[in-house]
Structure formats: structure tokens, C-alpha cells
């Protein structure tokens, strides 16, 4: 019946009879109504791009994707219903992964659980406290107030509910210390590191206690760690949209060294979380430097060959550093981490970073095993 009516209409207008399938007719009408572009005059091939090549390509992509079928596939909602929907709900469906809300966002957000956190500075009372996972700076708040308050967090929560917030504009600040600290306290790092800690920080793999605090009565045997360790890779998503990948080289040995030096990784990350690029020049290596805000740590960019050499022979080096941390005389500069930090995206870059102790008067006055303060007598005086 439809085909006969079409033929009749076309015949009445004096056009040639043409049989068009129903589905094809509908699709063609849709294309005309939503995606028919307004044709501009053809520009010369040698003419500069109108907005810039990237913007022009973006416009083309948007024009290609904004039709009703793609909207329906994205939103799982018919196009006629879009007009009656709340715009905020539409945005939530688009940016579900960024804002932590999704298609089941109508009151179905999973509430964070509570984990046990060991307060390193708690004085008296129960050292174990309950702390919600969602909080901006749990350690600092825990130490200062001792109260549990819930805060919104823009970064994924890490081990034991602790997380290192990243700077809003990480690409501009170039704070690699924050990236490394965030990665060290992430669940992704912990899940890969935990099986290796059995017999060192943890009694076994099924031990419920996280190794946030080191037990002095349980000595760490660095010599029992055999061979070269595999790399732990951690993906980091910054608030500004940049994606990073942090690779921890020799992760177990340096984790145990941090245990000896700082008590736990949380203390170390607290010191490392804010670093500033430090301008140096005149050195032969031309490597970049970062200085932690607390003034205790120094980050240095090293060559990939140096890092590979250290990672492959980290065993004797870690044994010697551990002896120095236990009080034996040593002059070696302490190294607490070896990381390969890569920025992903259009302009990828990778830098290899070592984290070492910055020599300060305070450290020396505390009796650092790094530097020995020798008294001397001058000959002839």
C-alpha cells in the first residue's frame, strides 16, 4: 500500500516513479533533518586552516557523531525523550567515569566503607581508629583532629583509605613527587606489592594487617630477597585529564628500605607529596631535579642505563643501605626509590627518577649514618 501511494504521489508531480524501501526512506529523512551540513565554499588547499587543524578535525568529528542514532546508543534513551530530561542527568551519563556517577546514579552510589587506620602519632588510647575511605587528606586530618569527617575526593582512594591528592594542573606544575606518592599509596600498587611482602612485612599473603607500620621486633632480612624483581606498573589519572604511568623498579627492596628509614610508606609519601622543580645547571648529566617541600628529599632524573644498572643489582646495594640505616657507619647517599614516570597521550615522555635523602643540618644533628662529622687536629697547631 505504501509503495503504491508513493508511486501515485510521484506520478502526480510529474516525477519518474521510483520505489524506495521504507527503512531507507526513514534513514534518508533522518539524515536530512539532523546531519545535513551547510556547505561552505571550497577553500584552497594552500589556505591556512580555519581554526587550526586540531579544532577543525574536532568539528568534523562532532558533526559526524551528533546524530540521533549515536545519541541513542550513548544515552540508551530515545531522542524524543531527551527534550524532557534534566540536562544534569545527561551530563552525568556522559562523564560517569569522571564524576563517579553513572547510569545507576540515581541514589545508587556505593557508599565508602570504613577501614582501620593506624595512627602513627596517636598519643595514648587505642592506636587503631576508624576512618572513612572518602576523605581528602586522611592522615593529616587524623593526626590533627582525630575525628572522622567525610570529604569529597577527586582521586581514587588508595591503600587503607589513604590517598595523595594530585595537583589540579599536573601538566603545568610538573610535580612528579605527587605522582609517585599517589602511585605508591594506590590500591593498584598495593595489590601487586602485597604478595611479595609475605615473610618480610606481612606474616603471609592472607595477613589482614597492612604493613603501614613496621614492627621493630620483626627484622627485615634483605639478603633473603633473591634475584631481580619485576616492575610494578601503576596507572595514574590526573584531575586535569592527563594520564601517567609510574613504574616502580625494585619495588620490594625500596619498600623495605622506606620501612627502615621512615616507618612506613605513608610517612614517606607525606614528605614526597609536594615537590617543586629545582633549577640546576652546570652539571654534565643535564638531569632535572625536584625538591620536596619539606626539604628532606631530593628527586633526581637519571639516565635509563643508570636506572637499569641499579635495578639489576639492587640486592647488595639495599643490604648496604639497610646496614647504614641500622646505624653502621656508611658514607653512601641514601636512595629510597627508583621510578620510571611516563606521561601518556599525544606527547608521551618518560623520565627515570631516583629519590634520595637531602642532606640537611637537621638530619646530621639527629645522628645520620650518611655523613660523619669528624673532628680533626691540624698538624702544627
Amino acid at each position: 500500500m505504501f509503495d503504491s501511494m508513493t508511486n501515485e504521489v510521484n506520478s502526480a508531480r510529474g516525477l519518474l516513479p521510483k520505489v524506495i524501501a521504507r527503512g531507507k526512506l526513514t534513514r534518508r529523512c533522518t539524515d536530512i533533518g539532523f546531519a545535513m551540513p551547510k556547505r561552505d565554499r571550497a577553500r584552497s588547499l594552500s589556505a591556512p586552516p580555519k581554526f587550526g587543524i586540531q579544532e577543525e578535525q574536532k568539528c568534523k568529528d562532532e558533526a559526524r557523531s551528533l546524530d540521533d542514532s549515536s545519541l541513542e546508543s550513548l544515552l540508551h534513551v530515545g531522542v524524543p525523550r531527551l527534550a524532557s530530561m534534566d540536562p544534569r542527568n545527561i551530563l552525568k551519563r556522559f562523564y560517569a567515569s569522571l564524576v563517579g556517577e553513572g547510569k545507576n546514579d540515581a541514589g545508587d552510589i556505593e557508599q565508602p566503607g570504613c577501614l582501620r587506620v593506624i595512627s602513627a602519632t596517636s598519643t595514648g588510647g587505642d592506636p587503631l581508629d576508624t576512618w572513612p575511605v572518602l576523605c581528602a587528606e586522611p592522615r593529616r586530618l587524623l593526626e590533627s583532629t582525630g575525628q572522622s569527617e567525610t570529604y569529597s575526593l577527586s582521586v581514587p582512594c588508595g591503600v587503607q583509605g589513604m590517598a595523595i591528592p594530585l595537583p589540579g594542573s599536573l601538566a603545568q606544575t610538573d610535580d612528579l613527587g605527587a605522582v609517585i606518592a599517589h602511585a605508591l599509596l594506590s590500591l593498584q600498587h598495593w595489590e601487586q606489592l602485597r604478595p611479595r611482602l609475605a615473610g618480610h612485612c606481612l606474616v603471609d599473603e592472607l595477613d589482614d594487617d597492612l604493613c603501614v607500620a613496621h614492627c621493630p621486633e620483626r627484622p627485615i632480612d634483605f639478603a633473603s630477597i633473591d634475584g631481580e624483581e619485576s616492575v610494578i606498573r601503576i596507572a595514574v589519572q590526573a584531575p586535569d585529564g592527563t594520564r601517567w604511568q609510574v613504574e616502580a623498579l625494585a619495588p620490594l627492596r625500596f619498600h623495605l628500605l622506606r620501612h627502615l628509614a621512615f616507618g612506613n610508606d605513608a610517612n614517606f609519601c607525606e614528605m614526597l607529596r609536594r615537590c617543586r622543580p629545582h633549577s640546576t645547571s652546570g652539571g654534565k648529566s643535564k638531569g632535572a631535579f625536584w625538591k620536596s617541600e619539606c626539604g628532606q628529599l631530593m628527586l633526581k632524573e637519571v639516565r635509563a642505563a643508570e636506572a637499569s644498572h641499579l635495578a639489576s643489582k639492587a640486592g647488595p646495594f639495599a643490604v648496604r643501605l639497610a646496614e647504614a640505616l641500622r646505624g653502621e657507619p656508611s658514607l653512601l647517599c641514601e636512595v629510597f626509590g627508583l621510578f620510571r614516570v611516563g606521561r601518556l597521550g599525544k606527547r608521551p615522555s618518560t623520565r627515570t627518577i631516583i629519590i634520595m635523602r637531602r642532606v640537611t643540618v637537621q638530619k646530621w644533628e639527629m645522628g645520620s649514618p650518611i655523613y660523619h662529622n669528624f673532628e680533626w687536629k691540624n698538624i702544627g697547631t
Partner: protein
Amino acid sequence: MRFWCFPMFSQQMFRNLLNGITDDWQIFDIKGAAHRNMPPAPSADPEASTAPSSPSAVKWDGGFVETFGALPKVLKPVDHEALELALKCDLHVLRELGLVDYSLLMAFHPKANRIRLAIIDFLQPYTLNKQHLCSASG
């Protein structure tokens, strides 16, 4: 142990490492090569630039010999033993790792009669390229 290779630390880096040490401290980057008389290249950063004659400038081996008049400094027996033990153990580990290119950083306070020592910049492996570079420079 070979001490005659190029430095990798700038003056600014030494000052960063020794932050908190006042200008009364004299700092030396010692590699054990008497011909290393030239100080590290001056920094392009105005804040980092330090005149070689200023007290906080990092001196090399030649400056070390010149400052002390080629005379030894005598330590207390206890300190000397601790220093010998530390060096023996540290250098044994570095030798095991194949690391032979490093510096001995020394800070000397003439008024307080204090000496501070550290081994730094020891990560670079002694590869064939490095051997060739050192041979050409020496």
C-alpha cells in the same frame, strides 16, 4: 677504584645537598685526580651562580690541595677507624656493583673543626664509552 672522571653534579646541586650548611663551610668534590683543578662550570641561573672564590663555591681536587697546602688532616683514632670501616664496606659494595665512577663530597668547617663526608653520584656504570671518555680526558 678510579677517581678521575667527569663530574655530574653542579655547584647548585652540591649546595642543594648541603642545604643548611652556612657559608663558613668549604665544599670539595674530590675524585682523586690531582689534575682536576678546574671548578665546575658556572651556573646560568643568577640565583645559583657563585663566584669560585666565594666560600660556598665547590672546589675540585686542585682546590682541595691548595686549600690545605697539601698537608693531611689528622682525625681522632675513633673517627679514623669509623671512616676506614665505612669506606671499606661502601667501596666493597660499589665494586660488587661495578660502580667505579663516583665522588667524595667533603664539607670542611675551619672554625668548628668539623669535616663531613659523603659518597655521591655513584649510579653510572663504568661502560666502555665511559672508559674511553676518561682516557681521553686524562
